[in-house]
């Protein structure tokens, strides 16, 4: 027959295999992972600054801790925002929740003499309530979460300013540092870990020390530990647990998920509560670090978190994304912010870069999603 004399000789391997079980090259499989774009971006940005910022101290231990700390703070809220976005919703009230949580920690502790741990618990309780209300409003009204949480962006910011001025007459509350020593709960959000290890490494002469022989970097800031911990837990939840499967399903197609028995409403409420909790963790770290709370803290953080999540490969429409991707997105964020500072470029340009990065990431993600669907 004619078809036997095919013009192009096919490779013997391809001829033996069924078209459906042909081997997929490793790189093609890797391409279908959501984090790939963020990983490539991280490598690119890292390589750029290793060259551009060489000799400026960006990649000394102190410099590394610097940009990791920036990445960590954003990464904490980005992790929660990633889970929520995979679940098909947004939370624009994260930034305002940071401001409100800070006030809720500082005012009871400083003005009314509450133990710090109880003030922190109060902040978490309020955050849980806010998340619960957000989730229920979205579920019950069917309104886009964009609108509901946009409302709470203003409500929470207004509450922070209102409560703070009503009770103290100011919008900034300082003096939290005095309350930290001896408070076991507050110590979870302050200071550094592995200080002994760093002292030991300094003794061995492995890391730089000051004139007194103490290491310049005394330990790993606790925020970085929170960031890595949350990312690890979120990744495990997404990839390994039924709840993770429900998050993907709720975001992919809420109706289909419901028909298959997934408790979509409960999943969404819990995700909104988690973003509010993550904002509170952020606020705790910041208040313990600076010793003060300010009602305007966390401004625009919700958008930065969304940028990190999108750079990390999540789809705005839900159902696709990863926590590791969000962590890489946050890392890119930290690298660029500190890199621009170290290289001496006017920091005004940071925002230009951020916007461009976001657009490139979204275009890349759309392209990748199409590829993933073709990867047969």
């Amino acid at each position, binding site marked *: 027959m004619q078809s036997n004399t095919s013009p192009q000789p096919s490779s013997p391997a391809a001829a033996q295999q069924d078209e459906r079980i042909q081997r*997929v090259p490793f790189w093609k499989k890797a391409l279908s992972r959501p984090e790939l774009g963020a990983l490539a971006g991280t490598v690119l940005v890292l390589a750029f600054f290793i060259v551009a910022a060489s000799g400026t101290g960006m990649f000394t231990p102190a410099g590394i801790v610097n940009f990791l700390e920036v990445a960590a703070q954003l990464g904490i809220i980005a992790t929660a925002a990633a889970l929520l976005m995979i679940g098909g919703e947004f939370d624009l009230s994260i930034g305002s929740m940071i401001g409100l949580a800070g006030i809720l920690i500082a005012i009871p502790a400083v003005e009314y003499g509450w133990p710090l741990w109880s003030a922190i618990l109060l902040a978490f309780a309020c955050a849980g309530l806010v998340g619960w209300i957000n989730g229920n409003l979205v579920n019950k009204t069917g309104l886009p979460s964009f609108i509901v949480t946009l409302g709470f962006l203003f409500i929470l910011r207004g509450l922070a300013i209102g409560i703070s001025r009503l009770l103290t007459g100011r919008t900034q509350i300082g003096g939290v540092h005095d309350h930290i020593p001896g408070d076991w709960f507050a110590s979870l959000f302050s200071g550094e870990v592995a200080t002994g290890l760093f002292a030991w490494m300094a003794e061995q002469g492995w890391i730089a020390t000051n004139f007194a022989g103490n290491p310049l970097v005394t330990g790993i800031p606790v925020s970085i530990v929170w960031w890595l911990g949350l990312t690890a837990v979120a990744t*495990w939840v997404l990839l390994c647990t*039924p709840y*993770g*499967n429900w998050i*993907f*399903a709720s975001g*992919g197609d809420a109706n289909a998920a419901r028909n298959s028995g*997934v408790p979509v409403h409960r999943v969404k409420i819990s995700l909104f509560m988690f973003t509010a909790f993550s904002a509170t963790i952020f606020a705790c770290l910041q208040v313990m670090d600076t010793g003060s709370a300010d009602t305007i803290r966390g401004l625009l953080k919700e958008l930065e978190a969304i940028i990190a999540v999108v750079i990390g490969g999540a789809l705005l429409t839900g159902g696709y994304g990863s926590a590791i991707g969000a962590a890489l997105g946050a890392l890119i964020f930290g690298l660029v912010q500190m890199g621009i500072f170290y290289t001496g470029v006017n920091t005004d340009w940071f925002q230009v870069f951020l916007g461009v990065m976001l657009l490139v990431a979204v275009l890349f993600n759309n392209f990748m999603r199409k590829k993933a669907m073709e990867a*047969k």
Partner: protein
Amino acid sequence: MSERTPMIEMRNVSKHFGSVIALSDISMKVFSGEVMCLLGDNGAGKSTLIKTLSGVHRPTEGQLLLNGEEVRFKSPAYALDAGIATVFQDLAMIPLMSITRNFFMGREPTIGWGPFKRIDWKRADRIAKQEMAKIGIDVRDPSQPVGTLSGGERQCVAIARAVYFGAKVLILDEPTSALGVKQASVVLRYIAKARADGLAVIFITHNVHHAYPVADAFTLLKRGGSLGSFRKEDISREEVLNMMAGGAELESLDAELAEFQRSDQQDQQASSANTTPLSRASNA
């Protein structure tokens, strides 16, 4: 005829939405190991009927009997628990999620305990692959997104899922309507297999050519009412087609077409006499 208890039976079921009578006085019996084809044109009440069976709607009048016992479903979840699985046209599949994740959506097999309880991916992947192999679809990699499957394969995953999770009654809503000939045959073959496994299958379609080869019985719906149930041996394909489309309507259509043809011929004769056929045609 057999004295067996029907797996599912509808007795004089009616469903009203306000003043609209969507279903009136429908009776139907489906036995295990049989395929009942529910045929009807658009608006005949097919969707309302399956939604009543699957627990989305409660019947206004009449009874539903499952294995001889009367049942009332408060929600689709209750129907599902009772063993009535419905595969709707949207399939309840999420294209960006893997085959395994879709297969076990909402019913993931777990391993471990307490906070370390996790999905048993090895088992889940194996089962998904096995169940797909049973229906003759060789899945290379059960972690590939469902979006990479063809429409027929997706339909099969949805059916395989329902069967695996213990369906006794399988309701399929237009499973072949969006498929090509080859893909439709994959689905039809699987329906025949589900019947051989002892399921009671209700197959909703408006395509008699798909329905006839696999069906054991037909129920024809028209404008919310039933034209009756027929065993396959009692009715021919042409009769089914005729009843479904409404023989009288087809006859009047024939008459209309003949009328068009006649007037066209007249036009032609007139225009051949006329010197400006184009202007005439455009006026007509």
